């Protein structure tokens, strides 16, 4: 971890009509750091993720990102071409629903290879070799490379989505409830995979989850949101073991101990 932040949010606000999506959120994510955003449904965590990833436009505030050349760029000043290039090379986005993050009618190999072709890979053999390598890393058998994700289980789809996102070696990955909707045993495998890939690749991750166990396992730091605001931040174990805010105490005490 270096001292220069990779992603910086300042005073981010977004309303949906009279309803508050996000209010005055400030945070920084550093290279190699996993930041968990927790809170219950409607707390604004998904809105925050949308704002950070520029999929949503803030009403106020800004998001800046340290480009590969070292300059910190206000993302709203980037043109659409530059922003999209960023999203398909330097960033990843793992969505809760694999249907939203995968091309369901395209083979597993094509799903993984798409980002490579998008950045100019034009050698079929190389693309396929890279796809095979990534399928192995996410524990998908090589003989499934030509199957499309409709034939995959939920856990496999999620692992495929991770491979599809990581193939261009992004520096920052957004994850929106990546284990939501999976069986517990499947969740454990996915979490372990994410944990080891994050450590191995030195990824910075912003992960939105309502599952505090996921946050504890994966994240270094944590942000607790309620009613669109960040109400508590700190080291993950600090926030979970010594929560200060009434709402955080309620969240932590509501978890069933396994």
């Amino acid at each position, binding site marked *: *971890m270096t001292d220069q932040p990779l992603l910086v949010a300042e005073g981010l606000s977004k309303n949906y009509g009279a309803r508050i999506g996000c209010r005055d959120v400030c945070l920084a994510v550093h290279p190699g*750091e996993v930041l968990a955003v927790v809170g219950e449904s409607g707390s604004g965590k998904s809105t925050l993720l949308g704002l950070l990833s520029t999929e949503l436009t803030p009403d106020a505030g800004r998001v800046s990102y340290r480009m590969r050349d070292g300059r910190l760029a206000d993302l709203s000043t980037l043109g659409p071409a530059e922003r999209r290039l960023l999203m398909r090379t330097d960033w990843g986005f793992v969505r809760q629903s694999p249907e939203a993050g995968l091309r369901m009618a395209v083979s597993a190999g094509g799903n993984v290879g798409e980002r490579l072709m998008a950045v100019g890979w034009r050698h079929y053999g190389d693309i396929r070799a890279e796809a095979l390598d990534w399928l192995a890393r996410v524990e998908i058998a090589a003989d499934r490379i030509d199957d499309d994700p409709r034939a995959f289980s939920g856990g496999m789809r999620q692992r495929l989505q991770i491979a599809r996102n990581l193939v261009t070696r992004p520096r920052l990955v957004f994850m929106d409830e990546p284990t939501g909707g999976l069986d517990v045993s499947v969740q454990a*495998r996915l*979490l372990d995979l994410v944990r080891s890939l994050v450590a191995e690749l030195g990824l910075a991750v912003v992960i939105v989850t309502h599952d505090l166990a996921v946050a504890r396992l994966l994240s270094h730091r944590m942000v607790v949101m309620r009613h669109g605001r960040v109400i508590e931040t*700190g080291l993950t174990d600090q926030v979970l073991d*010594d929560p200060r805010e009434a709402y955080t*105490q309620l969240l932590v005490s509501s978890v069933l101990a396994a």
Partner: protein
Amino acid sequence: MTPLLSVSGLSKTFVLHLRGGARLPVVAGAGFELFPGECVALGGPSGAGKSSLLKMVYGNYRVDAGHIRVRDEDQIVDVASADPRRLIRLRAGTMGYVSQFLRVIPRVSALDVVAEPLVGDGIPREEATVRAGALLARLNLPERLWALPPATFSGGEQQRVNIARGLIAHRPLLLMDEPTASLDAANRAVVIGLIEEKKAAGVGILGIFHDAEVRDAVCDRVIDVTEFAAAA
């Protein structure tokens, strides 16, 4: 000699919002020092705040007032006010923690759990695994268990994995919370030996040792936590 750890004016009160804002004082104005190569026990009856104090030093519990200054090579880091990322760095290289219970990570083998701190220090995985195996062998953990995730291990087996993970890498400051609670006499002796080696290497140890035999064997002095009790 500058202390490894210097605690001063440390106060902490839990506020339990779910119980109408009830206040649960832990310590008030706590202060002590720890020097390299010594092992200091936190003493006092159950509920005196030993464990909470240890967790505050580690940064796991937050503090209301006071300082926890830890020497990190040529810098002094105040855990009470440090930026979370500074704390992560402090934990990564300087301050180790051996907790009472192993926090099990799904699907990771006992050997990898133990080797992980070394890998984090940049030691090649192969060498780290060899050293992890040697330590587990010394702690009498049967080799057939090494490749298994510790989730299904007995309490004693889990604790030995935990101790091995906590002691395998060199950390100048070690915090230990009841490291021998569920161990038999033979394994207690192994742990005593390991702690002696750490002390000889200049490591400062702050711990909670309920077991009188272990405490008498390794501790140089005892800090009575009841002295720091807050006026409730």
